[in-house]
């Protein structure tokens, strides 16, 4: 037996003794998808990295089997192979352009199988000379929550758990502390004697969430957007504990989005579908803003309370706000330097 084939057999046996049996052609009734997927991968010439990965991942692959059992593989072996390769892909930041293109192709195919329509998944990088900033006018916000609704639809947020990136707080005039605010009001707005303050991820210049992540699954992009690699996150939720602004959300269960309302214009680091057990957050609608569009919340705001733009452009609206209005940020004393300012008329 050659060295590579013995590794193959060994890995296969480790992964799934059942699969070996199914490989025997005398069982036409059996579910062969997993075995074939593994076989197809294994029949390729393994380079050292892949082999290492397969071996080191074997322990994890036991768990992968559990995952495979949880989410039954489709009947097609191509799909099984895609899922297999998806499992062993790299951190997005370490991928080459080719690898990025490959994973996008796989994801597109898998998503098309899942939801009955192929999404368009961008990998648009940050553009030089761009640093995104956001300002929120607390005199103008009336608490209508159009932004919340737009965000849910734009970003394919989990409808099952009613996940929301944006929170709008109703605060009594004369108060400033969020502790006395009502973050779950539902009545006619604006309520007399109250003002409204919205929060979301503030895309800090010194994001504590990025520092604490043990696997580097979350980071700050060149244009200031703090993103999550959903396929790299291991779900330890340390970042959620580290965020001083409640900016992060966890998929406690498998997210549910009705297939007909899935937004198919997606970004790898943005609104593409997440899975259970990973962290997600506001990305300033990276799939829109990297194309020059405004975030969905800004576009949906009926009162013009939301200002978005490039901080490095001296002529941008956001720079006008910073230069001409009285602005403040939440918890400035923590040194996180949010790129999200509040201002009044």
């Amino acid at each position: 037996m050659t060295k590579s084939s013995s590794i193959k057999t060994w890995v296969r046996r480790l992964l799934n003794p059942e699969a070996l049996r199914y490989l025997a052609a005398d069982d036409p009734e059996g579910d062969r998808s997993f075995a074939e997927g593994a076989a197809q991968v294994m029949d390729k010439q393994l380079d050292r990295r892949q082999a290492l990965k397969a071996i080191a991942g074997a322990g994890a692959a036991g768990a992968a089997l559990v995952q495979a059992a949880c989410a039954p593989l489709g009947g097609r072996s191509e799909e099984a192979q895609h899922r297999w390769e998806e499992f062993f892909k790299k951190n997005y930041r370490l991928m080459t352009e080719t690898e990025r293109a490959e994973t996008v192709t796989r994801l597109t195919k898998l998503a098309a199988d899942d939801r009955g329509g192929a999404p368009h998944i961008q990998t648009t990088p940050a553009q030089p000379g761009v640093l995104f900033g956001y300002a929120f006018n607390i005199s103008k916000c009336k608490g209508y929550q159009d932004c919340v609704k737009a965000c849910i639809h734009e970003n394919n947020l989990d409808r099952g758990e009613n996940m929301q990136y944006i929170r709008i707080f109703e605060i009594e005039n004369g108060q400033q502390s969020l502790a006395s605010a009502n973050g779950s009001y539902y009545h006619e707005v604006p309520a007399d004697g109250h003002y409204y303050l919205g929060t979301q991820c503030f895309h800090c210049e010194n994001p504590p969430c990025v520092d604490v992540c043990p696997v580097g699954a979350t980071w700050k992009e060149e244009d200031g957007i703090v993103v999550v690699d959903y396929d790299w996150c291991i779900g330890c939720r340390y970042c959620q504990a580290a965020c001083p602004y409640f900016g992060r959300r966890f998929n406690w269960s498998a997210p549910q989005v009705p297939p007909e309302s899935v937004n198919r214009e997606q970004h790898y680091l943005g609104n593409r579908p997440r899975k259970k057990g990973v962290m997600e957050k506001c990305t300033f609608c990276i799939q829109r803003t990297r194309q020059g569009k405004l975030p969905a919340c800004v576009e949906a705001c009926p009162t013009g309370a939301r200002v978005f733009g490039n901080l490095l452009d001296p002529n941008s609206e956001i720079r006008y706000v910073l230069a001409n209005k009285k602005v403040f940020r939440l918890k400035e004393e923590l040194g996180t330097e949010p790129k999200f300012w509040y201002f009044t008329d």
Partner: protein
Amino acid sequence: MAFPGNRDRHGRHLTRMCLLSLLMLVGCSGPKPPHPARVADTIAAHEGPVQGPDTAHLTAELNRVRAEFPGRLQAADFFVETRVNQLKQAPCAQCHAAPVDLDKAPKAHWDIQLEHAGNHMMQCSTCHDPGDHKSSLIFLSGAALSMDHVYQQCGQCHFEQLRDWEGGAHGQRVAAWSGERVVRNCTGCHDPHQPAFPKRWPVHAARPADETLPIQEISHPEEGSAHD
């Protein structure tokens, strides 16, 4: 392992920690205290004229007109959404051939309730002149003004808002954050006859903070039903 093209300060943490231990050993005579990076510094270091993403296709379809400010030599560098093509009851000449006496209650415009700074200050004739200027608005001085440039008229009183609108702190940009700047007109958000935003139900219920409480079924009241 370093990530390519990251402005972040990788590797510095280890250095910083070593430095900290060193500080503890030799006393407090280190070179610099640890200091968080500031946005203001980042901006100062990298700002400049920027060629953002190409957004011509996003603004191409918009009906827009270059903003003008009377009395200025240079034209403004941004555009405003046009108004004329959205109006149904204008110009007045569609229906009115002869001058209309605005002192009488305008029966055909029964649906317009004027709630704008009180009747003593604002009347129909403050902005409209169906006598001489049927296809335009008028300034307080009586001079005509295109409906597309209604912001000039509002700005007669709301000069602070006009200033913020021009700068970008008031109002709303449309379509794109980069490229050609196109903004909503005042009337794009405000009903000029009732400029205050109305009371209404939020379009979405916030997620209750206390998830141990049963989430109540929210019956969404029909639009326009009696809320009082």
